[in-house]
């Protein structure tokens, strides 16, 4: 199966009965998507499929043939963190870190389709990502700051 992972072409055999989440973690050793609820409720397995966030635990790996997948590992460019990663760092958007990859990817995709989101827009975009430390306020502030920095 051919697909694009974080900008790189990949050509690899994929078992028919494996989730994209397990395929990324166990076969490709891409470990930023986490195994949480394993049923699409918690969002910690979030990856971008053609730029849009999806629950990788609910996608079969075989379904992403010829598609583009982005994980948190793909955001850093030439040693520089993505603006959203940086604002999560600077504004304490990450506490234990388990939800963070999903939060950042869902936030980045929000900013790509809506560069000037309101707090409500952010809450709506992140409604499928649960933070078990309940650090939502800092997460929202991180996204607002990222929007501001990206506009500069």
């Amino acid at each position, binding site marked *: 199966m051919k697909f694009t992972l974080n900008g790189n072409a990949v050509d690899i055999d994929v078992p*028919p009965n494996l989730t994209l989440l397990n395929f990324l973690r166990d076969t490709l050793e891409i470990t930023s998507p986490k*195994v949480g609820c*394993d*049923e*699409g409720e918690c969002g910690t397995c979030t990856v971008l499929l053609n730029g*849009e*966030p999806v*629950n990788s635990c609910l996608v079969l790996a075989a379904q992403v043939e010829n598609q583009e997948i982005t994980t948190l590992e793909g955001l850093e460019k030439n040693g520089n963190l993505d603006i959203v990663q940086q604002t999560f760092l600077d504004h304490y958007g990450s506490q234990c870190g388990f939800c963070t990859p999903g939060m950042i990817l869902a936030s980045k995709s929000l900013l790509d389709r809506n560069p000037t989101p309101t707090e409500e827009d952010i809450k709506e*975009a992140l*409604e499928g990502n649960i933070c078990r430390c309940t650090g939502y306020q800092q997460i929202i502030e991180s996204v607002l700051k990222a929007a501001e920095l990206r506009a500069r």
Partner: protein
Amino acid sequence: MRDQARPLPTFEFVAPDSLTDALKLLQEGGERARLIAGGTDMMLQLKNHTVQPEIVIDLGKILELSGVELNNDVLHIGATTTLNEIKNSPEIQQKAPLLLDVIDKFGSHMLRNRATVGGNLCHASPAADLAPALLALDVSVRLQGVADERLVPLSEFFVSPGKTAKQPDEILTKIEIPCRDGRSGYLKLGRRKGFNVSIVAVAAFGVITKEKVDDIRVALCAVAPTPIRCRKAEESLIGNPLTEEFIDNAAQIVMQEVKQITDDREKSDIRRASPSYHRASSPFRVEMSRRLTRKVLTTMSIEPGAEK
């Protein structure tokens, strides 16, 4: 490879790129084959081993099954169109705004990126989110077999939880919404937005003038084994003005219809009576079906553009 928390059953995976090929595969596979589109329901069934297919046929590569088109005032929505694609479609925004209300309250943005209209209907959950609105809009579904195609009213599509009028060798290819000018309303009661199985949801669409209701359809989900239309309540409204008196009366009728169903089920089999009793008790659902219906109809009684 490490152990997976919930390993999937062993199956073959095929992703045909035409409907003809998919139908052939489905016919050959028979009982051993299952269709998958967005996977938001099917993956859970696979993980729970409630289905154990030998062949999984992915519909995701079949272009003709996806997209929204407006032809002669009928909206055609391909079965594998995702909820976010429907929400972003200018045709839907203009001709069926009721669906926007429904989709806004459906799951999370991520689930809406994958969940498809066909999947939501074929899964036939009693709480299927799209069902009340699509019933209220008088939708028909197109079912394609190897030899024949048929158009089935959605009101005849749901048979029982998980069961539909679709034959095992058929594929639901699209839904068709007859566009009419009218007023609509939708309310859903759940615990929280984001991941939100309906406790009760009510949708209605009506052609309403100042004098009277010319035509109206009222539908609910999560109160019966399948999503339902409340025809007696509809009949009580047609020809009458949409005033508080008639609204209260119609809401009472809805409640009686729903109560009858839950009473019958509890008599027949306690365990099966309310598979989702942990979310809400039957008496609560019955009462909320009345209140939600009342609210939806009241919203619809206000003339568009009029001051509240």
